[in-house]
């Protein structure tokens, strides 16, 4: 039941019965659905809206920083805006986008299941997300929260603006995240189709599985610490209040115990996508399957041991700093393993430079540079200089925008035919990809230099000698924004007018392509039985007599 190579006479019409029109197309059938594909699509739509919302906030922030003094707003508005940007991008876009969106759609397809293990919980997860998003955005807009997404005490417990609604919103979204993670772990454990052992699991599933572990184990701690801040803010119980003997640094411990692993919630799914894309477009088996698969688990676990590297200048003890410092060096290794194995996968491949692959190229560069600057940041004495400067901002945008958004865009282009049955325009896709990658570099490379020069983050105004680099960064941001706008326009257009893709337009061996595009509601006509792995390309091509002898299996 592995996908067959696309025949040249691919069907020019969409399948008659798909998850999109069966059981029916009414709004209620979506609102009440148990189908993981529909839930995934709903997550995709809402997270994409959140992404563009957050993007608009980002552009406003960059506009404000175009000149040293006030440019288009006052300090209060600016502080609210960067809080909005952070909360919307992290809680409403980054964390749910790939796992809850693409993960929901693809994970059951990839393991040959009819649905996730708990379809009702899955739908509940989506509604929790919506409810949390509504509460958080209400709090941000009407409460004017100005704490930044980190909610550091005692600022967050003493600010005159309303913080509690945002905390509750994030708390509710946390539950959505937990339910999704729980669902994926159970699904992966119990619902794999016959023939699909752990060592044949698609790498996408491995990475989403690792993500889910983090979601399960870390999110409750965030929930509890947000609740404690809310209690503190509303009632003054004093757990984090220095005036009552509380320790504000303890909040930072709790917060980063979640939020550092949360960074891996954001990046692991992008790695999941990239592992699939690199194989499909180089038409090559993955180099070092086990290394790539297990390194996802490695990231998930070691990622928990490094949270203290956010506290190197917070008054944390030297002993803790040393422990966290050295452990942070190890977490980078797992990413390095993946990067080298992806690159080695290209060796002797047959590389088609399509749009998803273009985003893979961007991803590779951003991940290597962003990842290594991350390890550099964990180098203790350097962190003392860089901490809370634009260097940090540039670093985590390299990972989150650079790597994660590239992963998201690669996934969007790669699986758009699967989800909608239609292709995007390849030419426009490449143009936009080039704009996004270049615009991104122009936005954030100057910010590394700003950080080196010493500009702290969350600055509304800045001394004049930071001006030139800020102008460069704003200019780059406008290119990046324009590129993303092009993506949005042609994606929406191709949903209606794009050419019909056929079941397997990429000739991919991924299991999700073994069923029509878009898939029927029950995913597969019969329970599939797998006889080969999802990243095996050797026996796939049509044999031609003049080809040389097959290569030995071990090179």
């Amino acid at each position: 039941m592995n996908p067959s190579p696309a025949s040249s006479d691919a069907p020019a019409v969409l399948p008659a019965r798909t998850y999109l029109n069966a059981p029916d197309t009414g709004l209620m059938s979506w609102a009440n659905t148990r189908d993981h594909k529909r839930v995934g699509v709903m997550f995709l739509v809402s997270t994409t809206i959140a992404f563009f919302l957050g993007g608009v906030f980002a552009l406003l922030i960059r506009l404000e920083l175009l000149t040293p003094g006030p440019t288009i707003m006052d300090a209060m508005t600016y502080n609210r805006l960067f809080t909005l940007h952070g909360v919307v991008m992290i809680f409403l876009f980054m964390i749910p986008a790939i796992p809850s969106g693409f993960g929901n759609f693809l994970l059951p397809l990839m393991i040959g299941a009819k649905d996730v293990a708990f379809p009702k919980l899955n739908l509940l997860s989506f509604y929790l997300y919506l409810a949390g998003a509504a509460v958080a955005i209400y709090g941000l807009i009407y409460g004017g929260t100005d704490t930044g997404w980190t909610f550091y005490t005692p600022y967050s417990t003493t600010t005159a603006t309303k913080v509690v609604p945002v905390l509750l919103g994030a708390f509710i979204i946390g539950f959505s995240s937990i339910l999704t993670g729980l669902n994926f772990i159970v699904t992966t454990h119990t619902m794999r189709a016959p023939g699909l052992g752990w060592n044949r699991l698609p790498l996408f599933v491995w990475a989403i599985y690792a993500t889910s572990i983090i979601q399960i184990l870390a999110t409750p701690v965030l929930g509890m610490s947000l609740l404690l801040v809310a209690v503190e803010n509303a009632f003054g119980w004093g757990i984090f209040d220095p005036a009552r003997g509380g320790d504000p640094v303890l909040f930072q411990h709790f917060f980063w115990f979640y939020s550092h692993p949360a960074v891996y919630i954001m990046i692991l799914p992008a790695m999941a996508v990239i592992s699939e894309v690199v194989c499909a477009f180089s038409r090559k088996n993955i180099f070092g399957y086990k290394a790539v698969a297990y390194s996802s688990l490695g990231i998930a676990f070691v990622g928990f041991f490094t949270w203290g590297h956010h506290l190197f200048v917070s008054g944390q003890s030297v002993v803790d700093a040393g422990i966290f410092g050295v452990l942070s060096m190890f977490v980078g290794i797992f990413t390095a393993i993946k990067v080298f194995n992806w690159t080695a996968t290209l060796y002797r491949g047959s590389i088609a430079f399509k749009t998803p692959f273009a985003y893979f190229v961007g991803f590779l560069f951003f991940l290597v540079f962003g990842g290594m600057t991350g390890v550099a940041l964990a180098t203790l004495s350097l962190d003392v200089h860089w901490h809370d400067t634009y260097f940090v901002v540039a670093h985590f945008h390299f990972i989150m925008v650079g790597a994660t958004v590239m992963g998201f865009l690669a996934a969007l282009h790669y699986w758009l035919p699967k989800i909608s049955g239609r292709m995007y325009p390849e030419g426009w896709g490449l143009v936009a990809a080039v704009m996004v990658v270049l615009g991104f570099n122009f936005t954030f490379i100057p910010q590394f230099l700003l950080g080196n020069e010493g500009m702290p983050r969350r600055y509304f105004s800045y001394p004049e000698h930071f001006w030139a680099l800020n102008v460069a960064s704003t200019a780059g941001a406008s290119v990046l924004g324009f590129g993303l706008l092009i993506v949005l326009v042609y994606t929406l257009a191709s949903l209606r007018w794009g050419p019909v893709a056929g079941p397997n337009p990429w000739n991919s061996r991924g299991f999700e392509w073994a069923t029509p595009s878009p898939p029927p509601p029950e995913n597969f006509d019969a329970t599939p039985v797998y006889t080969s792995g999802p990243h095996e390309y050797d026996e796939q091509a049509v044999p031609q007599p003049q080809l040389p002898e097959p290569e030995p299996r071990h090179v």
Partner: protein
Amino acid sequence: MNELMRRMLWLPEQASEYARRVDGLHFFVISTTMIAAFGVFATAIWFFVRYRRRSDSDVTPVVHPRAIHEALFIGVPLALFLLWFAIGFPQYVSLTLPPPDAQDVFVQGKKWMWKFAYAGGPNSVDTLRVPADRPVRLLITSRDVIHSFYVPALRIKMDALPGRYTQTWFTADRPGRYEIFCAEYCGLGHSSMLGELVVMPQAEFDDWVAEQRRNVLAAAQDGGAAVQPVLGRAGVVDEGRRVAAEQGCLKCHSVDGSRHLGPTWTDLYLRQSKLKGGKTVVADEGYLTKSMMDPAADIVDGYQNVMPTYQGRMSPPEVAAIVEYIKSLRTPAVRSGPTEGPVYESIPRKQ
């Protein structure tokens, strides 16, 4: 080489031996990062070209890694990273071990200013003067929320925790003026919480300290503290002070001449102030009363409109008492704030 790298990376000047050592590590780390990133990238690009798809029926061989590949993938970066750690950690530890002969300076962050106090005086606001070539230990604290004391030129930064002390130290060896930033987000004035570090030769520093102590002494002989309410109508003034404390005025308005959320009350009475929009106003009784009832009407330039109205929250006699209290806060000469010391040409920064 050091200078070239420093300029290429836009690093600020290096005002201490520690800064130069950290920059050495910085250059090493960034160079390896660059080499690795471009190495991976060049390899990838070579593969894109060499192994581009030539026909739709291309066949690819199965390539599996040998153990040595994965060992290299793990070993090489791990060795590099651990080397970074091995260099960086001792530097970090050295920051937490101030030499015993270091001079102590108490640093206090407060929305949105830095106060510096030397044992035995003097105190100063926003300007930290230290002798060159002598270890200085900073004991850092905060009055309200977390701030972070950051001197880019020294490559040091330490959070100011409310109610408790953290420490860091440095030995500045280049006289000059350097920027001090607040690096931990602390609200409206976060980006204007700027200070200046003035490094002076030991002799000049000693002169400055002696000069300052003489001034403080003179002020004390003049009339006790630097801020001495003019007495008379004492009952009303006391009443005003009490109401001001009760209503929380003093959370935002200082009575010692320092800038806070709102303008200081010291010498506020009859002061000429420039308003937002360019008008000028004299702070007479009428203006002070109006500012309590309708604060948004006339905002002094450089301040935010954050004050709530007190219309209906205070009785007319209470308002009058506060005005009397403000009127009483007059000093012969305001002594707080940075005092001018010897001026150094700052080392020119690149444009």
